């Protein structure tokens, strides 16, 4: 349901010279749901992906914070806990797989900001976003629980990237607060409440759009925005764009190439205001 993230991330990586190769026959990481039913089986899902990546001698780059957290957690526990490692190794062995612990798991945002850096990103810009006011929404699992990428309470890595492409990140106190994840489906009342708060905060701080780095966060604040309005009598119309879509616009890609035409809440008006050329 998120070709937009996939398409825009691939285009941005191509522009930046990041050579992406899809992990061969990767499986679902299990996210939060699988771990709620099985513990070690959930870790084995991560372990298989890590084993395949190690065999291909590649590090893993992910765009979803849930994948980041589950893969990183398995990685850490393998290094910290020998009994855990024995169980995982035995499981992998039964499938003729093995993992020695040599794969690093990273989020694309962090790779772009830290490995590629400001000068390289700026050199690809065809048009800056002319002070487009963006609420940088990090959500939960990019920085929590490990805090390796950025601060667990008030991260700024996305804010910095937005400045590089000419946007204006607004103050966003709820930037790392929860969108509810799957709660929108399993407990709509709470899901809507959490997202109403996120939208309200963005609006109050003058945001014209919200930048996301997680497909589930994006779904909750964009696809269900109409439901928030219906429930609370609000009239939010705040488009949500992936950080790679915003980068793509600055790099000169078209709305269709970046799958912006698939949005449910139109960003046309704000893009026309802040971009010289919209293809």
């Amino acid at each position, binding site marked *: *349901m*998120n*070709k937009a993230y996939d398409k825009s991330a691939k285009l941005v990586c191509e522009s930046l010279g990041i050579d992406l190769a899809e992990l061969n*026959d*990767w*499986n*679902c990481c*299990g*996210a*939060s*749901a*699988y*771990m*709620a*039913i*099985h*513990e*070690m*089986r959930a870790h*084995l*899902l991560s*372990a*298989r992906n890590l084993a395949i990546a190690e065999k291909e001698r590649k590090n893993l780059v992910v765009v979803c914070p849930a994948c980041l957290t589950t893969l990183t957690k398995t990685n*850490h*526990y393998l290094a*910290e806990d020998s*009994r855990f490692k024995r*169980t995982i190794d*035995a*499981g*992998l062995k*039964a*499938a*003729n*797989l093995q993992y020695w612990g040599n794969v690093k798991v990273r989020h694309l945002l962090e790779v772009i900001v830290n490995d590629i850096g400001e000068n390289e990103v700026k050199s690809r810009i065809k048009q800056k976003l002319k002070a487009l006011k963006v609420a940088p929404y990090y959500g*939960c*699992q990019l920085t*929590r*629980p490990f*805090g390796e990428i950025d601060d*667990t*309470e008030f991260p700024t890595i996305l804010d910095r990237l937005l400045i590089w492409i000419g946007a204006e990140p607004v103050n966003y106190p709820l930037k790392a*607060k*929860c969108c*509810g*994840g*799957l*709660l929108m*489906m*399993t*407990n709509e*009342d*709470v899901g809507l409440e*959490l997202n109403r708060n996120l939208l309200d905060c963005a609006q109050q701080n003058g945001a014209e759009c919200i930048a996301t780095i997680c497909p589930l966060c994006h779904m909750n604040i964009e*696809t269900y925005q*109409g439901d928030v309005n219906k429930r609370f009598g609000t009239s939010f119309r705040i488009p949500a764009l992936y950080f790679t879509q915003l980068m793509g616009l600055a790099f000169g890609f078209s709305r269709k190439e970046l799958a912006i*035409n*698939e*949005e*449910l809440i139109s960003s046309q008006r704000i893009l026309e205001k802040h971009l010289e050329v919209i293809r």
Partner: protein
Amino acid sequence: MIMYEDRADRRAHALSNIFLHAVYGLPGGDKIKECLQCGTCSASCPTSYAMDYTPREIIAALRAGLLERILRSNTIWLCTSCYSCTVRCPSGIKLTDIMYELKRLAIEFGLAQEGANAAIAAKLFVDIVDKNGRMAEVPLVSRFLLKTNPLGTLKMIPRAAKLFLRGRMPLIPHRIKGISELEKCAGTLTEALVSGLHPPLAHGGED
């Protein structure tokens, strides 16, 4: 020697023991002993306002031998794994991991009753991943609705139509080639043994 008042008391003790055994097995798990009952977890939790028992109360209940009421409540099914509690706990308790353990326990002993939608969704998620090696949103959502709110499926149709018309509705789930590898991995585990050892608890009711 511990004197038990009655069967319920014995059962409560057994449940707590099973739970603690599992928690101590988690990396960093025995930090749970150092809970100060400060309430930082409850205050940080985005959904604690809707919980029958707050995160802090879980550990209080455990200490009072009242774990079962936690497992029967909506509390654990409102946890979104946001990890706010985990990063702020002054005792370094990995409360999110403990929440996962509670979820698994509640399901294993058939205690998940109230607010069990999240449990149903999680089981469907596992079922789809076990069959395909990948997640597929359309079967997840449609099967979930049919199970929990068949009439509510009608409400979903306008949203589904909007997504479909914008090409955001992937209809065919992809199955990975290495699905048998995942099966072989899982085959080495003996996680499911616990409930077999404690039949009275597995029934989830008074015995």
